[in-house]
Protein backbone atom coordinates (compact mmCIF):
# COMPACT_ATOMS: atom_id res chain seq x y z
CA UNK A 1 0.00 0.00 0.00
CA UNK A 2 1.54 3.31 -1.10
CA UNK A 3 1.05 6.04 1.52
CA UNK A 4 1.90 9.72 1.63
CA UNK A 5 4.39 10.70 4.32
CA UNK A 6 4.54 14.47 3.77
CA UNK A 7 4.07 16.80 0.85
CA UNK A 8 4.61 20.41 -0.12
CA UNK A 9 3.66 22.51 -3.08
CA UNK A 10 6.50 23.36 -5.46
CA UNK A 11 6.68 26.76 -7.10
CA UNK A 12 5.06 25.98 -10.44
CA UNK A 13 2.30 23.40 -10.67
CA UNK A 14 3.90 20.39 -8.97
CA UNK A 15 3.73 18.70 -5.60
CA UNK A 16 6.78 17.33 -3.82
CA UNK A 17 5.51 14.19 -2.12
CA UNK A 18 7.45 11.77 0.05
CA UNK A 19 5.83 8.35 -0.13
CA UNK A 20 6.34 4.98 1.45
CA UNK A 21 5.38 1.44 0.61
CA UNK A 22 3.65 -0.01 3.67
CA UNK A 23 3.68 -3.81 3.90
CA UNK A 24 1.61 -5.21 6.73
CA UNK A 25 1.64 -8.69 8.18
CA UNK A 26 -0.24 -10.19 11.06
CA UNK A 27 -0.71 -7.96 14.09
CA UNK A 28 0.41 -4.94 12.08
CA UNK A 29 0.73 -2.64 15.10
CA UNK A 30 3.04 -4.98 17.02
CA UNK A 31 6.30 -4.01 15.30
CA UNK A 32 7.50 -1.54 12.71
CA UNK A 33 10.63 -1.57 10.60
CA UNK A 34 11.52 1.49 8.49
CA UNK A 35 13.84 1.03 5.52
CA UNK A 36 14.79 4.41 4.07
CA UNK A 37 16.98 5.47 1.20
CA UNK A 38 17.38 8.13 -1.48
CA UNK A 39 18.49 10.98 0.80
CA UNK A 40 21.26 11.79 -1.67
CA UNK A 41 20.02 11.94 -5.23
CA UNK A 42 23.15 10.33 -6.68
CA UNK A 43 23.00 7.22 -4.45
CA UNK A 44 21.00 4.49 -6.13
CA UNK A 45 22.08 1.25 -4.44
CA UNK A 46 19.07 1.51 -2.11
CA UNK A 47 16.67 1.55 -5.06
CA UNK A 48 17.41 -2.09 -5.77
CA UNK A 49 17.00 -2.95 -2.09
CA UNK A 50 13.64 -1.14 -1.90
CA UNK A 51 12.40 -2.92 -5.01
CA UNK A 52 13.66 -6.39 -4.16
CA UNK A 53 12.69 -6.18 -0.47
CA UNK A 54 9.11 -5.34 -1.41
CA UNK A 55 9.01 -8.35 -3.76
CA UNK A 56 10.61 -10.64 -1.18
CA UNK A 57 8.21 -9.60 1.59
CA UNK A 58 5.21 -10.03 -0.72
CA UNK A 59 6.20 -13.70 -1.01
CA UNK A 60 6.65 -14.00 2.75
CA UNK A 61 3.46 -12.22 3.71
CA UNK A 62 2.17 -15.20 5.70
CA UNK A 63 5.31 -15.20 7.83
CA UNK A 64 5.33 -11.44 8.38
CA UNK A 65 4.36 -10.02 11.75
CA UNK A 66 4.10 -6.24 12.12
CA UNK A 67 4.67 -3.53 9.54
CA UNK A 68 7.53 -2.79 7.16
CA UNK A 69 7.62 0.75 5.75
CA UNK A 70 9.91 1.19 2.74
CA UNK A 71 10.80 4.81 1.89
CA UNK A 72 12.60 4.61 -1.44
CA UNK A 73 13.12 8.33 -2.01
CA UNK A 74 13.55 10.88 0.77
CA UNK A 75 14.87 13.29 -1.88
CA UNK A 76 12.77 12.64 -5.01
CA UNK A 77 13.88 15.84 -6.76
CA UNK A 78 17.54 14.95 -6.26
CA UNK A 79 17.04 11.48 -7.73
CA UNK A 80 15.09 12.85 -10.69
CA UNK A 81 17.77 15.44 -11.48
CA UNK A 82 20.86 13.26 -10.75
CA UNK A 83 21.79 15.73 -8.02
CA UNK A 84 23.24 14.73 -4.67
CA UNK A 85 21.84 17.61 -2.65
CA UNK A 86 18.49 19.35 -2.54
CA UNK A 87 17.84 21.04 -5.89
CA UNK A 88 17.52 24.78 -5.45
CA UNK A 89 18.56 24.71 -1.82
CA UNK A 90 22.32 24.07 -1.87
CA UNK A 91 22.33 22.02 1.31
CA UNK A 92 22.88 18.33 1.90
CA UNK A 93 19.56 16.79 3.00
CA UNK A 94 21.42 14.75 5.57
CA UNK A 95 22.47 17.97 7.32
CA UNK A 96 18.98 19.40 7.96
CA UNK A 97 17.48 16.85 10.33
CA UNK A 98 15.48 16.83 12.55
CA UNK A 99 13.97 19.54 10.36
CA UNK A 100 11.59 22.30 11.34
CA UNK A 101 8.09 23.53 10.60
CA UNK A 102 9.29 27.14 10.77
CA UNK A 103 12.17 27.47 8.31
CA UNK A 104 12.21 26.23 4.71
CA UNK A 105 10.23 23.77 2.62
CA UNK A 106 12.92 21.10 2.83
CA UNK A 107 13.18 21.45 6.60
CA UNK A 108 9.37 21.11 6.72
CA UNK A 109 9.73 17.92 4.66
CA UNK A 110 12.52 16.65 6.93
CA UNK A 111 10.33 17.29 9.98
CA UNK A 112 7.51 15.28 8.38
CA UNK A 113 9.85 12.38 7.63
CA UNK A 114 11.11 12.36 11.21
CA UNK A 115 7.60 12.33 12.62
CA UNK A 116 6.66 9.43 10.37
CA UNK A 117 9.65 7.21 11.19
CA UNK A 118 9.91 8.05 14.89
CA UNK A 119 8.80 5.19 17.13
CA UNK A 120 9.77 2.40 14.74
CA UNK A 121 11.44 -0.65 16.31
CA UNK A 122 14.35 -0.08 13.92
CA UNK A 123 15.24 2.17 11.01
CA UNK A 124 17.77 1.14 8.35
CA UNK A 125 19.09 4.15 6.42
CA UNK A 126 20.74 2.97 3.18
CA UNK A 127 23.44 5.06 1.51
CA UNK A 128 25.73 4.41 -1.43
CA UNK A 129 28.83 6.47 -0.75
CA UNK A 130 28.98 9.02 -3.59
CA UNK A 131 30.11 9.05 -7.21
CA UNK A 132 33.77 9.25 -6.16
CA UNK A 133 34.26 6.27 -3.84
CA UNK A 134 33.28 2.61 -3.85
CA UNK A 135 32.57 1.05 -0.45
CA UNK A 136 32.29 -2.55 0.73
CA UNK A 137 28.94 -3.26 2.44
CA UNK A 138 29.22 -1.73 5.89
CA UNK A 139 27.31 -0.28 8.80
CA UNK A 140 28.47 3.02 10.29
CA UNK A 141 27.67 3.69 13.92
CA UNK A 142 28.30 6.80 15.98
CA UNK A 143 30.22 5.81 19.12
CA UNK A 144 27.50 7.45 21.24
CA UNK A 145 24.99 4.81 20.08
CA UNK A 146 27.37 1.86 19.76
CA UNK A 147 26.09 -0.12 22.75
CA UNK A 148 22.53 -0.23 21.43
CA UNK A 149 23.25 -0.50 17.72
CA UNK A 150 26.22 -2.84 17.37
CA UNK A 151 24.27 -6.03 18.30
CA UNK A 152 21.63 -5.17 15.68
CA UNK A 153 24.28 -4.25 13.09
CA UNK A 154 25.92 -7.65 13.47
CA UNK A 155 22.73 -9.22 12.10
CA UNK A 156 22.69 -7.12 8.91
CA UNK A 157 25.03 -9.39 6.93
CA UNK A 158 27.38 -6.53 6.12
CA UNK A 159 31.14 -7.10 5.81
CA UNK A 160 32.21 -4.37 8.19
CA UNK A 161 30.91 -2.33 11.13
CA UNK A 162 32.71 1.00 11.55
CA UNK A 163 32.19 2.62 14.94
CA UNK A 164 33.26 6.20 14.31
CA UNK A 165 33.84 9.20 16.55
CA UNK A 166 31.01 11.56 17.43
CA UNK A 167 31.63 14.56 15.14
CA UNK A 168 29.36 17.41 16.19
CA UNK A 169 28.49 18.19 12.60
CA UNK A 170 26.90 14.75 12.21
CA UNK A 171 24.23 15.74 14.70
CA UNK A 172 22.20 17.04 11.76
CA UNK A 173 21.83 13.63 10.12
CA UNK A 174 18.67 11.55 9.98
CA UNK A 175 20.34 8.70 11.86
CA UNK A 176 21.66 10.87 14.69
CA UNK A 177 18.33 12.65 15.04
CA UNK A 178 16.34 9.39 15.17
CA UNK A 179 18.76 7.74 17.58
CA UNK A 180 18.48 10.82 19.80
CA UNK A 181 14.72 10.19 19.87
CA UNK A 182 15.32 6.55 20.86
CA UNK A 183 14.44 5.15 17.45
CA UNK A 184 17.39 2.84 16.77
CA UNK A 185 18.79 3.68 13.34
CA UNK A 186 21.54 1.92 11.43
CA UNK A 187 23.37 3.62 8.57
CA UNK A 188 24.37 1.28 5.74
CA UNK A 189 26.99 2.40 3.22
CA UNK A 190 27.69 0.19 0.23
CA UNK A 191 28.67 0.37 -3.40
CA UNK A 192 29.12 3.59 -5.31
CA UNK A 193 27.01 6.51 -6.48
CA UNK A 194 24.98 6.37 -9.70
CA UNK A 195 25.27 2.58 -9.92
CA UNK A 196 23.46 -0.47 -8.58
CA UNK A 197 25.51 -3.41 -7.30
CA UNK A 198 22.99 -6.25 -7.21
CA UNK A 199 25.15 -8.59 -5.10
CA UNK A 200 25.46 -5.97 -2.34
CA UNK A 201 21.73 -5.37 -2.41
CA UNK A 202 20.97 -9.08 -2.12
CA UNK A 203 23.47 -9.34 0.75
CA UNK A 204 21.67 -6.56 2.61
CA UNK A 205 18.22 -8.04 2.02
CA UNK A 206 19.41 -11.27 3.67
CA UNK A 207 20.55 -9.12 6.59
CA UNK A 208 17.24 -7.28 6.80
CA UNK A 209 15.37 -10.61 6.96
CA UNK A 210 17.78 -11.72 9.68
CA UNK A 211 17.19 -8.62 11.78
CA UNK A 212 13.43 -8.91 11.21
CA UNK A 213 13.54 -12.43 12.61
CA UNK A 214 15.46 -11.07 15.63
CA UNK A 215 12.81 -8.37 16.14
CA UNK A 216 10.03 -10.97 16.01
CA UNK A 217 8.73 -9.73 12.66
CA UNK A 218 9.36 -12.90 10.65
CA UNK A 219 7.90 -16.22 11.71
CA UNK A 220 10.37 -18.40 9.88
CA UNK A 221 14.00 -19.33 10.49
CA UNK A 222 16.48 -16.49 10.05
CA UNK A 223 18.74 -16.79 7.01
CA UNK A 224 22.39 -17.35 7.90
CA UNK A 225 24.54 -14.21 7.98
CA UNK A 226 28.32 -13.81 7.95
CA UNK A 227 29.95 -12.20 10.99
CA UNK A 228 31.25 -8.72 10.19
CA UNK A 229 34.57 -7.12 11.02
CA UNK A 230 33.93 -4.62 13.81
CA UNK A 231 36.34 -1.73 14.05
CA UNK A 232 36.85 1.76 15.39
CA UNK A 233 38.55 4.83 13.88
CA UNK A 234 41.90 3.73 15.24
CA UNK A 235 42.15 0.86 12.78
CA UNK A 236 41.32 2.92 9.69
CA UNK A 237 44.00 4.67 7.61
CA UNK A 238 43.20 7.29 4.97
CA UNK A 239 45.06 7.78 1.70
CA UNK A 240 44.61 11.18 0.04
CA UNK A 241 46.10 12.47 -3.19
CA UNK A 242 48.76 15.12 -2.77
CA UNK A 243 48.72 16.00 -6.45
CA UNK A 244 45.93 16.66 -8.94
CA UNK A 245 45.41 14.55 -12.04
CA UNK A 246 43.78 11.25 -12.96
CA UNK A 247 43.72 8.26 -10.63
CA UNK A 248 44.80 4.94 -12.16
CA UNK A 249 44.21 2.19 -9.59
CA UNK A 250 46.76 -0.60 -9.20
CA UNK A 251 44.65 -2.67 -6.77
CA UNK A 252 41.03 -3.77 -6.81
CA UNK A 253 38.36 -2.76 -4.36
CA UNK A 254 38.21 -5.09 -1.33
CA UNK A 255 41.74 -6.41 -1.97
CA UNK A 256 44.03 -7.08 0.96
CA UNK A 257 47.24 -5.07 0.61
CA UNK A 258 50.61 -4.91 2.33
CA UNK A 259 52.15 -1.83 3.90
CA UNK A 260 54.02 0.09 1.17
CA UNK A 261 52.14 -1.61 -1.68
CA UNK A 262 51.31 0.61 -4.65
CA UNK A 263 47.59 1.45 -4.55
CA UNK A 264 47.51 3.64 -7.63
CA UNK A 265 49.05 6.39 -9.70
CA UNK A 266 48.08 10.00 -10.28
CA UNK A 267 48.63 10.42 -14.00
CA UNK A 268 49.14 13.60 -16.04
CA UNK A 269 47.76 12.92 -19.53
CA UNK A 270 49.11 16.23 -20.82
CA UNK A 271 52.74 15.24 -20.32
CA UNK A 272 52.50 11.48 -20.03
CA UNK A 273 54.06 11.82 -16.59
CA UNK A 274 53.23 10.36 -13.21
CA UNK A 275 52.37 13.04 -10.67
CA UNK A 276 52.32 10.74 -7.65
CA UNK A 277 52.58 7.09 -6.59
CA UNK A 278 50.19 6.33 -3.77
CA UNK A 279 51.33 3.65 -1.32
CA UNK A 280 49.37 1.90 1.39
CA UNK A 281 50.36 3.23 4.83
CA UNK A 282 49.43 -0.08 6.52
CA UNK A 283 48.64 -3.69 5.72
CA UNK A 284 44.94 -4.37 5.55
CA UNK A 285 41.70 -4.37 3.59
CA UNK A 286 40.96 -1.73 0.94
CA UNK A 287 37.40 -1.12 2.04
CA UNK A 288 37.09 2.22 0.23
CA UNK A 289 38.62 2.84 -3.20
CA UNK A 290 38.33 5.84 -5.49
CA UNK A 291 36.05 5.21 -8.44
CA UNK A 292 35.96 8.62 -10.14
CA UNK A 293 39.30 9.25 -11.89
CA UNK A 294 39.58 13.05 -11.68
CA UNK A 295 41.31 14.08 -8.46
CA UNK A 296 42.30 17.38 -6.92
CA UNK A 297 44.98 17.69 -4.31
CA UNK A 298 43.43 16.21 -1.18
CA UNK A 299 40.90 13.95 -2.89
CA UNK A 300 40.30 10.75 -0.93
CA UNK A 301 41.80 7.75 -2.74
CA UNK A 302 41.36 4.86 -0.32
CA UNK A 303 40.62 3.81 3.22
CA UNK A 304 42.48 0.81 4.57
CA UNK A 305 41.23 -1.24 7.48
CA UNK A 306 44.21 -2.58 9.38
CA UNK A 307 44.50 -4.81 12.44
CA UNK A 308 43.03 -8.21 13.04
CA UNK A 309 39.50 -9.14 12.15
CA UNK A 310 37.13 -9.63 15.03
Amino acid sequence: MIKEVISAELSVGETLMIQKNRIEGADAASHRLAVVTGTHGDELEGQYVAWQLARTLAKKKNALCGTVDIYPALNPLGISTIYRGLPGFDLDMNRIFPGSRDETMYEYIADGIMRDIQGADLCIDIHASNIFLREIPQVRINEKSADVLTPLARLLNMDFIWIHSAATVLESTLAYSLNALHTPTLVVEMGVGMRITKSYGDQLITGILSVMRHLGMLKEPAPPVAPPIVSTDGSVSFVNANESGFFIPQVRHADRVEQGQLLGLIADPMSGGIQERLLSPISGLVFTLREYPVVNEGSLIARILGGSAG
Partner: protein
Amino acid sequence: MRKETLFTIDALPYRQPISVYGYYFGTDAKTLAVMGAIRGDEFQQMYTAARLVNRLSHLESQGRLSESCGILVVPCAGQFSMNVSHRFWPLDNTDINRMFPGYEAGETTQRLAARIFEALKGYHWGVHLTSLYLPGDFAPHIRVMDTGLQKNDKGLDFGLPYLVSRDPHPYDTTTLNYNWQVWETNTFSLYTRATDSIDEQSADEAVDSILRFLAKLDMLREHDLPPGTQTQKLDEKNLVTIHNKAAGILLRRRGPGDRISRNETAALIIDPYTSEIREEIRSPSDGVIFFARHAQILPSHTVVFRVIP
Protein backbone atom coordinates in the same frame (compact mmCIF):
# COMPACT_ATOMS: atom_id res chain seq x y z
CA MET B 1 50.55 47.86 1.42
CA ARG B 2 52.21 44.54 0.91
CA LYS B 3 50.62 41.93 -1.34
CA GLU B 4 51.62 38.36 -0.56
CA THR B 5 50.63 35.00 -1.97
CA LEU B 6 49.14 33.14 0.98
CA PHE B 7 48.96 29.85 -0.90
CA THR B 8 48.32 28.55 -4.38
CA ILE B 9 45.55 26.15 -5.38
CA ASP B 10 46.98 23.58 -7.73
CA ALA B 11 43.98 23.43 -9.99
CA LEU B 12 45.12 20.67 -12.30
CA PRO B 13 44.02 18.85 -14.34
CA TYR B 14 43.83 21.37 -17.16
CA ARG B 15 43.38 24.53 -15.08
CA GLN B 16 46.19 26.88 -14.22
CA PRO B 17 47.32 27.38 -10.60
CA ILE B 18 45.26 29.93 -8.65
CA SER B 19 46.95 32.16 -6.09
CA VAL B 20 45.12 33.37 -3.00
CA TYR B 21 46.47 36.77 -1.99
CA GLY B 22 46.66 38.60 1.30
CA TYR B 23 47.00 42.38 1.46
CA TYR B 24 48.92 43.52 4.51
CA PHE B 25 48.82 47.05 5.93
CA GLY B 26 50.72 48.72 8.75
CA THR B 27 53.08 46.75 10.94
CA ASP B 28 53.53 43.03 11.57
CA ALA B 29 51.17 43.29 14.56
CA LYS B 30 48.19 40.98 14.22
CA THR B 31 45.48 43.51 14.97
CA LEU B 32 42.69 42.80 12.46
CA ALA B 33 42.12 40.24 9.71
CA VAL B 34 39.26 40.55 7.24
CA MET B 35 38.13 37.58 5.16
CA GLY B 36 36.18 38.30 1.98
CA ALA B 37 34.65 35.73 -0.38
CA ILE B 38 35.09 32.04 0.40
CA ARG B 39 32.17 30.82 -1.72
CA GLY B 40 31.90 31.19 -5.45
CA ASP B 41 28.86 33.47 -5.46
CA GLU B 42 30.05 35.92 -2.82
CA PHE B 43 30.68 38.72 -5.29
CA GLN B 44 29.55 41.41 -2.87
CA GLN B 45 31.86 40.07 -0.18
CA MET B 46 34.82 40.11 -2.60
CA TYR B 47 33.92 43.62 -3.77
CA THR B 48 33.60 44.89 -0.21
CA ALA B 49 37.01 43.47 0.70
CA ALA B 50 38.50 44.95 -2.47
CA ARG B 51 37.09 48.37 -1.56
CA LEU B 52 38.62 47.96 1.91
CA VAL B 53 42.01 47.19 0.34
CA ASN B 54 41.68 50.38 -1.69
CA ARG B 55 40.68 52.56 1.28
CA LEU B 56 43.35 51.12 3.59
CA SER B 57 45.96 51.65 0.92
CA HIS B 58 45.12 55.37 0.79
CA LEU B 59 44.98 55.68 4.57
CA GLU B 60 48.33 53.95 4.95
CA SER B 61 49.99 56.16 2.34
CA GLN B 62 48.67 59.20 4.23
CA GLY B 63 50.20 57.89 7.49
CA ARG B 64 46.81 57.51 9.13
CA LEU B 65 47.32 53.98 10.54
CA SER B 66 48.69 53.87 14.08
CA GLU B 67 52.20 52.49 14.67
CA SER B 68 50.84 49.44 16.47
CA CYS B 69 48.28 48.47 13.84
CA GLY B 70 48.70 45.51 11.50
CA ILE B 71 45.90 44.49 9.16
CA LEU B 72 45.39 41.59 6.74
CA VAL B 73 42.65 41.58 4.09
CA VAL B 74 41.98 38.47 1.98
CA PRO B 75 39.53 39.54 -0.75
CA CYS B 76 38.83 36.10 -2.19
CA ALA B 77 39.64 32.44 -1.68
CA GLY B 78 36.81 31.16 -3.86
CA GLN B 79 38.24 31.76 -7.34
CA PHE B 80 38.20 28.08 -8.30
CA SER B 81 34.40 28.04 -7.81
CA MET B 82 33.70 31.65 -8.83
CA ASN B 83 35.24 31.28 -12.27
CA VAL B 84 32.94 28.36 -13.10
CA SER B 85 29.78 29.79 -11.45
CA HIS B 86 29.60 27.37 -8.52
CA ARG B 87 28.85 28.43 -4.95
CA PHE B 88 30.77 25.47 -3.48
CA TRP B 89 33.80 23.41 -4.52
CA PRO B 90 32.89 22.29 -8.03
CA LEU B 91 34.16 18.73 -7.90
CA ASP B 92 32.27 17.50 -4.84
CA ASN B 93 30.04 20.48 -3.90
CA THR B 94 31.60 20.78 -0.44
CA ASP B 95 31.62 24.14 1.33
CA ILE B 96 35.01 25.45 2.51
CA ASN B 97 33.14 27.34 5.24
CA ARG B 98 32.04 23.99 6.69
CA MET B 99 35.61 22.68 6.89
CA PHE B 100 37.31 24.91 9.48
CA PRO B 101 39.76 24.75 11.15
CA GLY B 102 40.77 22.54 8.24
CA TYR B 103 43.09 19.59 8.01
CA GLU B 104 46.27 19.74 5.96
CA ALA B 105 46.31 15.97 5.37
CA GLY B 106 42.59 15.77 4.61
CA GLU B 107 40.35 16.25 1.58
CA THR B 108 40.65 19.17 -0.82
CA THR B 109 38.38 21.66 0.91
CA GLN B 110 39.73 20.65 4.33
CA ARG B 111 43.21 21.51 3.05
CA LEU B 112 42.07 24.84 1.63
CA ALA B 113 40.35 25.70 4.91
CA ALA B 114 43.57 24.82 6.77
CA ARG B 115 45.59 27.17 4.53
CA ILE B 116 43.10 30.01 4.87
CA PHE B 117 43.02 29.50 8.62
CA GLU B 118 46.80 29.41 8.88
CA ALA B 119 46.89 32.91 7.36
CA LEU B 120 44.02 34.25 9.49
CA LYS B 121 44.70 32.83 12.93
CA GLY B 122 46.48 34.72 15.66
CA TYR B 123 44.80 38.06 14.95
CA HIS B 124 43.18 39.85 17.85
CA TRP B 125 40.12 40.83 15.81
CA GLY B 126 38.54 39.02 12.87
CA VAL B 127 35.81 40.09 10.46
CA HIS B 128 34.26 37.62 8.03
CA LEU B 129 32.24 39.09 5.17
CA THR B 130 29.84 36.23 4.61
CA SER B 131 26.49 35.09 3.25
CA LEU B 132 23.49 33.06 4.41
CA TYR B 133 22.50 29.68 2.93
CA LEU B 134 19.15 31.16 1.91
CA PRO B 135 19.32 33.68 -0.96
CA GLY B 136 18.07 36.95 0.45
CA ASP B 137 18.74 40.55 1.32
CA PHE B 138 19.61 41.77 4.79
CA ALA B 139 19.53 44.98 6.68
CA PRO B 140 23.30 45.58 7.17
CA HIS B 141 24.43 44.08 10.46
CA ILE B 142 27.12 42.46 12.52
CA ARG B 143 26.37 38.91 13.56
CA VAL B 144 28.07 37.17 16.44
CA MET B 145 27.93 33.54 17.32
CA ASP B 146 27.42 33.47 21.05
CA THR B 147 30.08 30.98 22.12
CA GLY B 148 30.83 32.67 25.42
CA LEU B 149 34.44 33.06 24.28
CA GLN B 150 34.39 36.78 23.51
CA LYS B 151 32.81 40.11 24.39
CA ASN B 152 30.11 40.46 21.79
CA ASP B 153 29.39 44.09 22.65
CA LYS B 154 32.53 45.19 20.80
CA GLY B 155 30.36 44.63 17.74
CA LEU B 156 28.58 47.88 18.64
CA ASP B 157 31.72 49.76 17.55
CA PHE B 158 31.05 49.07 13.88
CA GLY B 159 28.11 51.50 14.04
CA LEU B 160 25.90 49.36 11.79
CA PRO B 161 22.15 49.36 12.44
CA TYR B 162 22.06 45.94 14.14
CA LEU B 163 24.19 43.62 16.24
CA VAL B 164 22.61 40.16 16.10
CA SER B 165 23.64 37.32 18.36
CA ARG B 166 22.77 33.71 17.80
CA ASP B 167 23.39 30.44 19.60
CA PRO B 168 25.65 28.15 17.56
CA HIS B 169 24.03 25.08 15.99
CA PRO B 170 25.97 21.81 15.53
CA TYR B 171 26.66 22.66 11.89
CA ASP B 172 28.17 26.02 12.93
CA THR B 173 31.09 24.34 14.66
CA THR B 174 32.97 23.96 11.37
CA THR B 175 32.62 27.58 10.23
CA LEU B 176 35.40 30.15 10.15
CA ASN B 177 33.57 32.33 12.68
CA TYR B 178 33.29 29.57 15.30
CA ASN B 179 36.84 28.31 14.92
CA TRP B 180 38.35 31.78 14.84
CA GLN B 181 36.75 32.32 18.25
CA VAL B 182 38.04 28.99 19.56
CA TRP B 183 41.53 30.09 18.47
CA GLU B 184 41.08 33.29 20.52
CA THR B 185 40.31 35.79 17.77
CA ASN B 186 37.38 38.08 18.60
CA THR B 187 35.21 37.41 15.57
CA PHE B 188 32.37 39.23 13.86
CA SER B 189 30.48 38.25 10.74
CA LEU B 190 29.50 41.28 8.70
CA TYR B 191 26.44 41.05 6.43
CA THR B 192 25.77 43.65 3.79
CA ARG B 193 22.54 43.77 1.83
CA ALA B 194 23.60 41.52 -1.07
CA THR B 195 25.57 38.39 -1.96
CA ASP B 196 25.56 37.48 -5.64
CA SER B 197 25.11 41.03 -6.90
CA ILE B 198 27.15 44.17 -6.28
CA ASP B 199 25.54 46.79 -4.05
CA GLU B 200 28.05 49.64 -4.06
CA GLN B 201 26.37 51.72 -1.36
CA SER B 202 26.06 48.79 1.01
CA ALA B 203 29.68 47.78 0.38
CA ASP B 204 30.87 51.31 1.16
CA GLU B 205 28.81 51.31 4.37
CA ALA B 206 30.49 48.04 5.34
CA VAL B 207 33.96 49.42 4.63
CA ASP B 208 33.15 52.55 6.65
CA SER B 209 31.99 50.34 9.52
CA ILE B 210 35.26 48.36 9.57
CA LEU B 211 37.29 51.58 9.50
CA ARG B 212 35.07 52.99 12.27
CA PHE B 213 35.82 49.87 14.31
CA LEU B 214 39.55 50.48 13.78
CA ALA B 215 39.14 54.12 14.81
CA LYS B 216 37.40 53.02 18.05
CA LEU B 217 40.46 50.86 18.72
CA ASP B 218 42.64 53.96 18.22
CA MET B 219 44.21 52.30 15.20
CA LEU B 220 43.17 55.07 12.84
CA ARG B 221 44.14 58.75 13.16
CA GLU B 222 42.37 61.86 11.92
CA HIS B 223 39.61 60.08 10.12
CA ASP B 224 36.61 61.74 8.53
CA LEU B 225 34.34 58.73 8.66
CA PRO B 226 30.56 59.10 8.93
CA PRO B 227 29.52 58.58 12.55
CA GLY B 228 27.51 55.42 11.99
CA THR B 229 24.15 54.69 13.50
CA GLN B 230 22.91 53.82 16.95
CA THR B 231 23.21 50.02 16.95
CA GLN B 232 20.28 47.95 18.13
CA LYS B 233 21.17 44.64 19.81
CA LEU B 234 19.04 41.67 18.78
CA ASP B 235 18.84 38.03 19.65
CA GLU B 236 18.08 36.02 16.52
CA LYS B 237 15.56 33.96 18.50
CA ASN B 238 13.39 37.06 18.92
CA LEU B 239 13.02 37.80 15.22
CA VAL B 240 9.54 37.08 13.85
CA THR B 241 9.56 34.73 10.88
CA ILE B 242 6.99 35.13 8.12
CA HIS B 243 6.30 32.11 5.91
CA ASN B 244 4.32 31.63 2.75
CA LYS B 245 1.70 28.91 2.60
CA ALA B 246 1.04 28.95 -1.14
CA ALA B 247 3.63 28.42 -3.86
CA GLY B 248 4.07 30.56 -6.96
CA ILE B 249 5.68 33.77 -8.19
CA LEU B 250 6.99 36.01 -5.39
CA LEU B 251 6.31 39.74 -5.70
CA ARG B 252 7.98 41.53 -2.82
CA ARG B 253 6.31 44.72 -1.61
CA ARG B 254 8.76 45.46 1.20
CA GLY B 255 12.51 45.06 1.53
CA PRO B 256 15.17 45.00 4.23
CA GLY B 257 15.18 48.04 6.50
CA ASP B 258 11.56 48.93 5.67
CA ARG B 259 9.14 49.61 8.50
CA ILE B 260 6.01 47.48 8.39
CA SER B 261 2.76 47.52 10.33
CA ARG B 262 0.84 44.59 11.69
CA ASN B 263 -1.36 43.10 8.95
CA GLU B 264 0.35 45.14 6.24
CA THR B 265 1.07 43.22 3.02
CA ALA B 266 4.78 42.45 2.73
CA ALA B 267 4.63 40.31 -0.42
CA LEU B 268 2.27 38.58 -2.79
CA ILE B 269 2.34 35.03 -4.08
CA ILE B 270 0.96 35.02 -7.60
CA ASP B 271 -0.46 32.09 -9.53
CA PRO B 272 2.17 31.33 -12.19
CA TYR B 273 -0.47 30.60 -14.84
CA THR B 274 -3.14 33.24 -14.26
CA SER B 275 -1.40 35.96 -12.21
CA GLU B 276 -4.22 35.79 -9.67
CA ILE B 277 -3.17 36.44 -6.11
CA ARG B 278 -2.80 33.12 -4.31
CA GLU B 279 -1.63 34.59 -1.02
CA GLU B 280 -1.11 37.97 0.56
CA ILE B 281 1.79 37.63 2.97
CA ARG B 282 1.06 39.94 5.88
CA SER B 283 3.24 40.92 8.79
CA PRO B 284 2.02 39.47 12.11
CA SER B 285 3.46 42.43 14.01
CA ASP B 286 4.70 45.97 13.72
CA GLY B 287 8.41 46.13 13.07
CA VAL B 288 11.30 46.52 10.69
CA ILE B 289 12.15 43.98 8.00
CA PHE B 290 15.51 42.45 8.80
CA PHE B 291 15.71 39.74 6.12
CA ALA B 292 13.81 39.45 2.85
CA ARG B 293 14.01 36.35 0.69
CA HIS B 294 15.40 36.99 -2.77
CA ALA B 295 13.64 34.68 -5.25
CA GLN B 296 11.48 34.87 -8.35
CA ILE B 297 9.44 31.76 -7.50
CA LEU B 298 8.89 30.09 -4.15
CA PRO B 299 7.70 26.68 -2.97
CA SER B 300 5.33 26.51 -0.01
CA HIS B 301 6.41 26.53 3.66
CA THR B 302 9.42 28.81 3.19
CA VAL B 303 10.82 31.76 5.10
CA VAL B 304 10.01 34.94 3.19
CA PHE B 305 10.82 37.59 5.80
CA ARG B 306 12.28 37.97 9.24
CA VAL B 307 11.02 40.99 11.10
CA ILE B 308 12.40 42.86 14.11
CA PRO B 309 9.29 43.32 16.26
